[in-house]
């Protein structure tokens, strides 16, 4: 699905060769500051490598319309971003940004349930706690049903119990709908539990991690 060849970005990360497979759960582990997020941002085309090539479905990222790409390869930042308005507005905004039709009430309610948020859809989203905001942001991209989900530390603001529940939801979802899931995490235990394949970023380079 993604194929990376000889890329470098500033002096943060360099990858000689890496393939990320379709319909797999790939976890990226490594210490903070090792360049995990940078790698994820390159896959979402928020930044481009200084040299080298990244392809998505055998097409060079530089030849793909960046907006179209991001609508297929959606990224969730580490710090959840909440837009102005209610929970409903925040769930719908991803679909609005990507020019898709609005979800039904039923879909919205189901999404809240899936991310374990027992809140009213018309509540102001700014009043949520950190963990609740993260779950709302996760719900937002679940609704978008993208081909690839890039999650940057999706559980950093969640307690352990909610963490595995939420990650399980995403893993189940990806398996069920044949989606590709790429997840940055600091927790090797989490990676071991859920990943089909684990990549370790260390010293600015990426290696397969066999557990």
């Amino acid at each position, binding site marked *: 699905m993604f194929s990376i060849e000889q890329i470098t970005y500033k002096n943060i990360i360099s990858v000689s060769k890496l393939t990320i497979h379709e319909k797999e759960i790939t976890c990226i582990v490594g210490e903070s500051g090792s360049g995990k997020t940078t790698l994820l941002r390159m896959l*979402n*085309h*928020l*930044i*481009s490598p200084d040299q080298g090539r990244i392809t998505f479905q055998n097409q060079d990222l*530089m030849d793909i319309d*960046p*907006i*179209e790409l*991001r*609508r297929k390869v*959606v*990224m*969730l*930042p580490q*710090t959840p*971003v909440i*837009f*102005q308005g209610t929970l409903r507005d925040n769930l719908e*905004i*991803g679909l609005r*940004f*990507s*020019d898709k039709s609005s979800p039904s009430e039923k879909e919205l309610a189901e999404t809240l349930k899936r991310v374990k948020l027992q809140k009213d859809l018309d509540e102001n989203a700014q009043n949520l706690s950190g963990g609740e905001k993260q779950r709302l942001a996760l719900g*937002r*991209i679940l609704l*978008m049903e993208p081909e690839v989900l890039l999650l940057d530390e999706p559980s950093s603001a969640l307690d352990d119990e909610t963490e595995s529940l939420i990650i399980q939801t995403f893993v189940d979802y990806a398996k069920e709908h044949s989606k590709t899931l790429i997840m940055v995490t600091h927790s090797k235990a989490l990676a071991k539990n859920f990943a089909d394949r684990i990549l370790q970023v260390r010293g600015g380079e990426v290696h397969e991690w066999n557990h």
Partner: protein
Amino acid sequence: MNGIIDLSILQVLSAYIFIAVLMIILRVRGIAREKEVLISSIRMTLQLILVGYVLVYLFESMNPFLTLLVLLVMESFAIYNIIQRSKSPLSKELKNIVALSMVLGTLTSLLFFLFVVIQISPWYDPQYFIPIAGMLIGNSMTGISLGVNRLLDGMKDQKTLVEAALMLGATPKEAAKEVVDSAFDSAILPTINAMVGMGIVFLPGMMTGQILSGVSPVTAIAYQIAIMLGIVGSVSLTVILFVQLGYKSFFNDRAQLKTD
């Protein structure tokens, strides 16, 4: 209506009593502002005397090239001033956008105002051309200045929000919409407030001047209404041009936020 009372030099000098009073207050209270007050009142006096003679010369010579030259000087000064007044340094691209929006926005409204609203003849009549150009350019300058600061601040403070929108597949236009709208809003707000207070909270300078010089208040008001609308038009046009072109300078052609 009577003409205006001519002021003799002695009468004008007597008005400097106000500055003397201010200087005494500063001295007594020990506030170290005497130098600035002195310099600024001298500057004000010299600049106005100079501009007075320049205007007399321009009005008498009735030369289209001179009128255009004045316009050029005003535009350049305004653009320079906007760039100088910006709180954080502007990229070269953004400076060009400031210049382009100022010139396009003010010229369009100026031409419309002079030739459709007032219908001056000859087209370069400095008595109308210069003061009206001054008012439109001056107000648009203030508007864009506000817009520049709000756009820069907004793109900096809301960076994560803008980027999060991009991550979800938004176009740069949608991603920056909130920042752009708020920059536009804050840039035109003072002009809109000026309309609300006009005639009650304050009598605008142009109208006061015309009334003092013996023009019927009704005519003066007609002019004031027209110029106020012209200012609104010029400010909104320059500011919308600026924010619409300006936000794009923060993104590259791969719809990525530029770093630095």
